């Protein structure tokens, strides 16, 4: 009888251990953003800040303008790409000003197109998107950007600069 009792305790002990799952919170990762670096077109090795830069997605009302810390004290920006579409378009305003809710400045429209790849991470996260075969088209008159170079054509993490913009 005592043997049965101890085995029962063992059984239900193991069962309760099994119920403690950490699988419900996603900590394994996230869909990566595109890291853009801004450089001087005359001296391609040195970073150059675009003055009063404001970025806004096409058909969006929220702006992005905060630079993020970078390894090489450059001027870098993370912008989200849209995993529901094959491309994402952004207006880049230099010397931007907002007067009465109207955004104006020297504007460029970049359309970033890509091949989507679904990457399974974990039970809690499910799938994140990776973006491959990056291509960038400039659709408006070329205003302030001299050149765009794709350094890394697949966006699988946010650690390194994917796209360099020379101005």
């Amino acid at each position: 009888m005592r043997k049965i009792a101890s085995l029962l305790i063992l059984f239900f002990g193991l069962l309760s251990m099994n119920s403690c799952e950490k699988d419900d919170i996603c900590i394994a990762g996230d869909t990566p953003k595109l890291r853009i670096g801004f450089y001087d077109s005359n001296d391609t090795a040195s970073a150059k800040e675009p003055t009063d830069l404001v970025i806004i997605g096409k058909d969006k009302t929220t702006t992005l303008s905060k630079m993020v810390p970078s390894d090489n004290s450059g001027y870098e920006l993370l912008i989200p790409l849209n995993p529901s579409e094959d491309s994402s378009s952004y207006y880049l305003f230099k010397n931007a000003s907002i007067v009465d809710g109207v955004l104006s400045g020297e504007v460029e429209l970049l359309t970033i197109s890509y091949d989507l790849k679904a990457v399974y991470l974990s039970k809690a996260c499910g799938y994140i998107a990776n973006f491959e075969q990056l291509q960038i088209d400039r659709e408006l008159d070329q205003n302030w950007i001299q050149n765009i170079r794709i350094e890394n054509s697949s966006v699988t993490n946010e650690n390194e600069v994917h796209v360099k913009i020379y101005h």
Partner: protein
Amino acid sequence: MLRSITSLLFLLASTFVIAQETTDNSALKDSTAQMESYGIKINLDLSKKLLELKNKDYSGSELGADFRLNQWWYLAAELGKETKTIVEDTYNYTSSGSYFKVGGDYNNYENWYGMYSMITFGMRFAHASYAQTLNDFNFYNTDRYWNSESFDPSRLNLNPIEGLSASWLELVLGIKTELFANIYLGGSVRIGMLLAHDNSLNYPNNWIPGFNNVTEDSKFGASYNYTLSYLIPLFEKPRKYKKEKEFFPTDGVEEVDLNNNNNRGFNTRN
């Protein structure tokens, strides 16, 4: 205090031994040996059918059988198939396949005369082959710039994955009780330990037919079932008894008696 506890323990021990003796005596009184039926017990799974009624996303069935080897040991096996759609926050997928389990059960229950109940400890080796289909998914993305209401819906479709397999060992705690002649109602709780599991694919793989849920970074899983069984009696064999250990602490009882008169009343042997 300690004395009274120990003497109480001795009391319990002595009643235990007395109870044991009476059953032994009754067995000895029988001049003819008690015959017990041996045969194949067919176990029909009830729990999976009940789950099917309750849950639209699930279907399953299982058939088991055990064959009695001797007084205590049974050969046991199960064969089943299950299909389940697992719905998570950002994706849902369907896992579907079949499995078999082979092993043995040890009946630990000492039946009274004419009873054929079982409390079994058993082990199984199990193997499942299954396929998975990702029905639809959203991309997990903490950034909500482009899709403010939800995670980004995906326009991609991933192909179903066929030919997955998993094998595991199972510890089984089971009970069966005879309702009518040769008809048993039973249940079991099972703990599985994965030995091999195809898990390196770009696919969610958290539910295996026959094994139940798989926890990430853990080999262990748990499941249960209820069964209705029918015993097909094939032949009969005389009942065997385990050898009972002689367990009566005569010395200890005497010592307590000598030192403390209050304990005398507890000792049922004297």
